[in-house]
């Protein structure tokens, strides 16, 4: 009987281990949030944040996961960093109090509250976005998710793309509405290595 129990335990242990959540640390060189906002009703202006850190966990067996991203808002880049003959560049204006107010609120964070799975992969991440000190719910749709070993360094990694939409006025960023759109589309490119 004792041998039987040990045999069952021996068989179960690998399954338990496989079901444990795996933790990943964001690769800052392959994780960037991008945004898109209407400009004067003429074009969609795009920009990105160059510095993002964070972690995520995934448990494919239990179909649970979590993600926490910290974005340095001063790293905003819309391709207009040189002021030339103008007093200030657009990125300088975006860093000032009218928009991201980076001196007062240097970070934007996203913390998940629930992750939906379809099969083995996450398809939707619900969470809270904190911007300008204001926290509001935000749901990200995961458009692509892959876990595999990096073909170069052979380290296990996961990553993909996700997107969501927010109204910047919900966070108190009201300057320039409606000439500069209220609705902002967010696109995330995320990769992380297993800890």
């Amino acid at each position, binding site marked *: 009987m004792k041998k039987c129990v040990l045999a069952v335990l021996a068989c179960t242990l690998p399954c338990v281990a496989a079901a444990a959540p795996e933790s990943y640390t964001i690769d800052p060189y392959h994780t960037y949030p991008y945004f898109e906002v209407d400009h004067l009703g003429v074009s969609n202006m795009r920009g990105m944040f160059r510095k993002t850190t964070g972690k995520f966990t995934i448990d494919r067996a239990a179909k649970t996961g979590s993600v926490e991203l910290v974005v340095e808002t001063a790293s905003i880049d819309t391709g207009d960093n040189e002021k030339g003959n103008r007093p200030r560049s657009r990125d300088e204006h975006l860093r000032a*109090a*009218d928009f991201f*107010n980076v001196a*007062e609120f240097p970070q934007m964070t996203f913390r998940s509250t629930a992750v939906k799975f379809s099969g083995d992969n996450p398809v939707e991440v619900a969470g809270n976005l904190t911007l*300008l*000190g204001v926290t509001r719910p935000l749901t990200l749709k995961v458009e692509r998710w892959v876990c595999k070993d990096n073909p170069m360094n052979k380290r296990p990694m996961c990553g993909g793309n996700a997107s969501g939409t927010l109204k910047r006025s919900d966070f108190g960023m009201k300057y320039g509405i409606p000439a500069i759109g209220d609705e902002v589309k967010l696109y995330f490119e995320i990769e992380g290595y297993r800890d």
Partner: protein
Amino acid sequence: MEGFLGHPAVQAVLAPFAAGLAVAFALAAVRLAGLAVAAGLAAAVALIGGFAFPPVSAQQKVLLLALAAPALGVLADLAFKPARAAGPVLGAIFGLAAVWVAWNFLRQKELAMAVAAGAGLAALAGWTTAAFFALRGEPVRAGAAALAFGFGVGASALLSAAASYGQYGMALGAGAGAFLLAQLAFGRPIAAGATLTLGAGVAGGLLLVGTVLGAQLPWYAALALSLVPLAVRLPLPRAGLWAQTLLAGLYGGIVAALACLLSWPGVQERLGL
């Protein structure tokens, strides 16, 4: 105990009454027993929702204070005769208010830096408040100072990448321009009082604080702008309201224009600032 304090009747009546009673007995001797009402309300706030309000940004604080200051000015003009110490006291109060405005910035800095920056910003807002308040009995100088200061703050904020602060500053200048024009239309000085001077001095000073913190206005440009209420004290002709207004506006305008030049990045680079 938690259940007891969570009872709506305790929160709404019993605890506020106890707090009010304590304050009334404690402060009756110094004629402040009336604070019992505020103590009752404070007790209810503490028990019902707490004092942890959602974060207020520096700009929201500036606007709250900028709108409260003229209301205080109306009270001072219509209900009280300001004492001799009123200017410095108001300066100290709004100087402390500047520290409140800057709090989110200051708490991210090291202590020594935070103390130095907080003191500098408090001095700036305190000075503009007191300097403008001192002009309350001189409507031409007060109006001209508010005009130059408002447009100066507005233009320098725009040059520092803070468009909304810039627009608010210009709005101050536009309001002051309307006051001056009304004065010229009447053909005689009209009362500026604490209503105008607190409105301009506090709002303009705190807009400067906000622009230094939240945008790229250099401290020396803010300092130069704070000299506007001093500049309008230069001699004016004894007669002729138009001449007085134009000359006072010119005094303030020259200082404001110099400050705006200092806010221009190209000038800063040339001067090696």
